[in-house]
């Protein structure tokens, strides 16, 4: 005898998932709910990547996944969720988005580019030659204060963390590094988010 499957559990599951999603975004539905979900996904990736800011190791697989998610939810994927005038509650978007659309879409695209760059940097290239013991010793002995300079503090020169010091300057490797360090890209990602929030979020 053929067993019939009741559609009710599936329907109940879908309904429950929708309710949870809507409640989770302050009751937001439609395009506002969709973009709030996207922002939440971005926030989760930023949280997962947080240890890199303090120099702690993060699995390349985690970085790669976060990079993919950032790329997926930024650029045109993000700006498409901001049709003009979509300011239904509980949105936190400000109408300046459409008055300064070029700036807004520029920041969304910058985030997308940084996501791509993060993906490329997820697996660090093997060094051509290990640093000499003397170099390693000097490197670990440079304190946070020593890495700062008058020019970097005043904004007259870029700030460089220990990880950002070009190994060619120290003679550790022969050629320039192919990619920027993950911590530096992460810093640019959070700065891009901050610029956008400062200008376009209530």
């Amino acid at each position, binding site marked *: 005898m053929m067993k019939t499957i009741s559609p009710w559990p599936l329907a109940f599951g879908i309904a429950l998932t929708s309710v949870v999603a809507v409640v989770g975004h302050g009751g937001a539905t439609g395009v506002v709910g969709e973009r709030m979900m996207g922002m939440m996904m971005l926030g989760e990736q930023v949280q997962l990547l947080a240890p890199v800011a303090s120099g702690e190791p993060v699995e390349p697989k985690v970085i790669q996944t976060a990079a993919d998610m950032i790329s997926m939810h930024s650029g045109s994927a993000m700006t498409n969720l901001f049709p003009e005038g979509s300011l239904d509650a509980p949105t936190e978007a400000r109408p300046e988005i459409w008055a300064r659309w070029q700036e807004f879409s520029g920041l969304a695209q910058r985030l997308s580019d940084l996501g791509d760059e993060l993906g490329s940097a997820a697996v660090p290239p093997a060094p051509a030659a290990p640093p000499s013991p003397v170099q390693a010793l000097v490197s670990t002995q440079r304190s946070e204060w020593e890495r700062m300079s*008058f020019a970097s503090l005043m904004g007259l020169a870029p700030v460089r963390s220990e990880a950002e010091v070009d190994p060619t300057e120290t003679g550790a490797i022969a050629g320039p590094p192919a990619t920027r360090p993950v911590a530096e890209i992460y810093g640019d990602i959070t700065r891009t988010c901050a610029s956008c929030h400062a200008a376009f979020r209530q």
Partner: protein
Amino acid sequence: MSRIANVMVAALAMASVGVIALELWPLPAAAVLTEHVGDAKRGAYLARLSGCITCHTKQGELPLSGGPALVSRFGSFYAPNITADAEAGIGNWSFEQFVRAVRQGVSPEGEPYYPAFPYEFYAALTDRDLADLWAAVRESPASNTPSRDHEVGFPFNVRSGLKVWRTFFERPVSYTPDPERTLEWNRGQYLVWGPAHCAACHAPRNALGGLPSARTLSGDPQMQDGGIAPPLTARELTARGYTKAALVHALKTGVTPDGDVFGGSMAEVVHGSTEFLLTTHLEDIAAYLLDIGAR
């Protein structure tokens, strides 16, 4: 003489007395300073910590060459050019004039500064701090960009009226270490209430922009720029998911415990100031804030 004429003469006389009184209203005299040889790098660090570079610099321009509008309910204030340029900046000032301006809020011409310049907090800076800041100013490139006038309406555009304001609302911060507390806690107290001037935004100001008489970081639901500054007490911070490590991380990166990223004026504070600070100083700040009201 008609009655109207009498009233007009009386009003004119009162106005004249008022103007003379405001002109003669005393301002604090310059303090006697101890000798220090300034360290420009330490001064640059203090300029980051104190927000000098954040407020006095427009994006893409030379540091300290003049800032963007600081919007308030009284009007827009523009932090002036404080580079070493002799004409447009403060290159002609003496060190004593610089100290009086920063710590006492009085210009070399004897005019009071608006409290948009948080000199009440900088009152806690030491002579050595000021010598270092002065060295940083002197060593930075000079800019001839002219300072922009504030856009403030009547009666707030009457500078001398600030003397009356100061009499009633000025709250200069003094730093007294607590011997019962750790070095970390005391440093945190100094940083929070002195150079970092957290209470400039995170304490409720009255209708005339005055700070509360008691030291509090209970937040400001109606900031001058229309924003909301949340409380920074241990209870509130803990409820928002902040631990010491999370607070250090937020001040270093602008990322909150739930993965959100600061916007508004706090984004400017992080990316213009706190992200440049030593981890140990961020830990001091976090240790102090997470203790407020905890006992």
